[in-house]
């Protein structure tokens, strides 16, 4: 158990005071309008949303997860975390298109992109799902903090879950996204500095880089130093086929919107950037920080492995990076380390509180319940939604043990069968809301069949996860493609308005032609447009 000294408590309280102060400081800006409460008035320079991207995607469970995969697989485990690379292409394709649409959320973008009843059904569904998902992520990340406090300080799990999320809610309720993004900047700087110090300290404790290499050699495990230590083309637990699948999902996925669960918080950051250019650089820079942080963590975890090579329990070795901090940093630095853990925790909590609230306010309340609501009223609805999400996350967090495996499954199915439709909705004019909805519904059924039911009865063999992905994608296509062609295309006037505003990439020839005929744009050669 870790004992905090007076200096440690000083770091901790100073940090929490700084975060709450940022909420008070930006209270007046946050309450001006819903654009301020949810997007900081769309006026941020690129480095602010970039720091928010980095801070948000550094949560309390992230070092546990990366520690787990690197401890188990060595440096090749780094590719599990490479999914963030979807931002490489997104920064110059889907980010640009989304920023130009001016939509607050992905659900709102879909109502600009699609038309008619299908579009309304889709917006309601996506908004409801997003409110639920944000509450779930809040519970998940919150209980991870509860477990960390329990392991290292012997506090009951509810303390870590409830106390810190409640402190965070003060500045999110007061200043909305202004509070989130300003606190994220400070949290990002603090977290990055402490991650660098702790990881380098851990590497030094393991004998330095050459010590780690020579000890792995002596243990006969130098394969752990090779990020490309594949187990065969299709065989073993780390085949080339898995790696290629991961790269395709990550990199090609950047053309679409929603191909990664991280798209949804990123969409808010994209829209809060001052210009299209700021949005592109924010997404690109925030993500490279995430990837570099992963590399740093990976080497530190190799250090942890050579210090403690025989841990069998995943729950135990997943705490590896935290142990490097709590057990090896000098007295007085432990409080600083814990403040950094709080920084990464609060940045994720604040993002999902505000993000869940924007879907509840903008897509549900404002769009369906009270379209004539004043700006002041919408800000208050945003605050009330934030509070409800907070309370809901406590309930989820406390029952998380029972439902996590189900919800991880839900996340997986959301990704696998809807991956291609998430790209098609961006690049193909003929793809419509019915096709998109059909892919969701088909995916719900197919995933149960492919992952559990058919293998259970021996009708198909159990497939590795990368094959499940391709199978679900192919089966989903057999459903959503006919549905798309059997239902009418979106209204051409609606598509033309969207095209002129967002200028999407891909197969938009007929819409472009219609825009030219309406005199809304000049005919110019555009290779590959139709």
């Amino acid at each position, binding site marked *: 158990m870790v004992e905090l000294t007076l200096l440690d408590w000083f770091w901790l309280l100073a940090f929490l005071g700084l975060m709450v102060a940022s909420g008070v400081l930006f209270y007046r800006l946050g309450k001006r309008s819903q654009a301020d409460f949810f997007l900081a008035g769309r006026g941020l320079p690129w480095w602010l949303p970039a720091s928010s991207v980095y801070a948000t995607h550094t949560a309390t469970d992230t070092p546990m997860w990366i520690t787990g995969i690197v401890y188990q697989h060595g440096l090749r485990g780094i590719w599990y975390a490479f999914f963030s690379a979807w931002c490489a292409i997104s920064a110059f394709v889907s980010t*640009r298109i989304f920023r130009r649409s001016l939509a607050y959320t992905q659900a709102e973008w879909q109502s600009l992109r699609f038309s008619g009843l299908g579009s309304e059904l889709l917006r309601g569904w996506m908004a409801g799902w997003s409110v639920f998902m944000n509450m779930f992520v809040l519970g998940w990340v919150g209980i991870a903090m509860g477990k960390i406090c329990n392991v290292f300080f012997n506090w009951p799990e509810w303390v870590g879950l409830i106390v810190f999320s409640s402190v965070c809610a003060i500045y999110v309720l007061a200043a909305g996204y202004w509070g989130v993004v300003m606190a994220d900047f400070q949290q990002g700087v603090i977290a990055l500095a402490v991650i660098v110090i702790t990881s380098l300290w851990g590497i030094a404790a393991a004998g330095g880089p050459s010590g780690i290499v020579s000890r792995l050699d002596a243990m006969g495990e130098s394969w752990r130093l090779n990020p490309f230590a594949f187990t065969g083309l299709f065989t073993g637990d780390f085949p080339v086929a898995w790696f290629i699948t991961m790269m395709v999902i990550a990199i090609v996925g950047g053309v679409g919107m929603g191909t990664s669960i991280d798209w949804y918080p990123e969409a808010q950051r994209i829209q809060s950037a001052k210009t*299209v250019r700021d949005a*592109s650089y924010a997404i690109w820079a925030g993500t490279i920080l995430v990837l570099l942080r992963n590399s740093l963590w990976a*080497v530190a975890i190799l250090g942890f492995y050579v210090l403690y090579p025989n841990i069998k329990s995943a729950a135990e070795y997943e705490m590896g990076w935290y142990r490097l901090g709590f057990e090896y940093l000098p007295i007085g630095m432990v409080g600083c380390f814990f403040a950094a853990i709080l920084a990464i925790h609060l940045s994720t909590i604040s993002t999902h509180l505000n993000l869940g609230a924007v879907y509840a306010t903008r897509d549900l309340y404002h769009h369906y319940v009270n379209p004539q609501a004043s700006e002041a009223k919408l800000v208050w609805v945003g605050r009330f939604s934030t509070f409800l999400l907070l309370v809901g996350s406590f309930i989820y967090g406390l029952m998380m043990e029972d439902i996590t495996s189900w919800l991880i499954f839900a996340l997986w199915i959301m990704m696998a069968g809807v991956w291609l439709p998430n790209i098609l909705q961006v690049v193909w004019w003929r793809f419509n809301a019915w096709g998109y909805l059909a892919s969701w519904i088909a995916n719900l059924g197919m995933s149960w069949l492919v992952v559990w039911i058919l293998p259970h009865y021996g009708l198909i063999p159990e497939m590795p996860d990368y094959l499940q992905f391709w199978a679900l994608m192919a089966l989903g296509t057999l459903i959503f493609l006919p549905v798309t062609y059997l239902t009418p295309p979106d209204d051409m006037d609606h598509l033309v308005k969207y095209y002129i505003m967002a200028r999407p990439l891909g197969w938009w020839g007929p819409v472009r032609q219609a825009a030219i005929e309406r005199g809304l744009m000049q005919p110019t050669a555009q290779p590959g447009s139709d």
Partner: protein
Amino acid sequence: MAWIRRKWTPEAAEEWTREDLIACILSPLAYFLLSLGLLHALLLQTWGYFLLILGVLISYAMYVVIDPKLRTISEEFEKKQAKHLEELERIQRWEE
């Protein structure tokens, strides 16, 4: 680099062009090299430094290729943003 366009008209910048494609190729490559480079540089392996430097150079090349176009798109779009926002609010409030 004559084949890379440095000056853009607003109309030309609206189109998807070779510069976008080049940025989309260089960008994941830069991510890949920087991630791998730091990993190996931290283990004091020489080729880690080499990959890291290559990653920085490719990131810079990506910036040089895409930045003039992004600037033009941004400047042009900002002029139209207020009108687009009005349209967005009209759809949001169901004012047909």
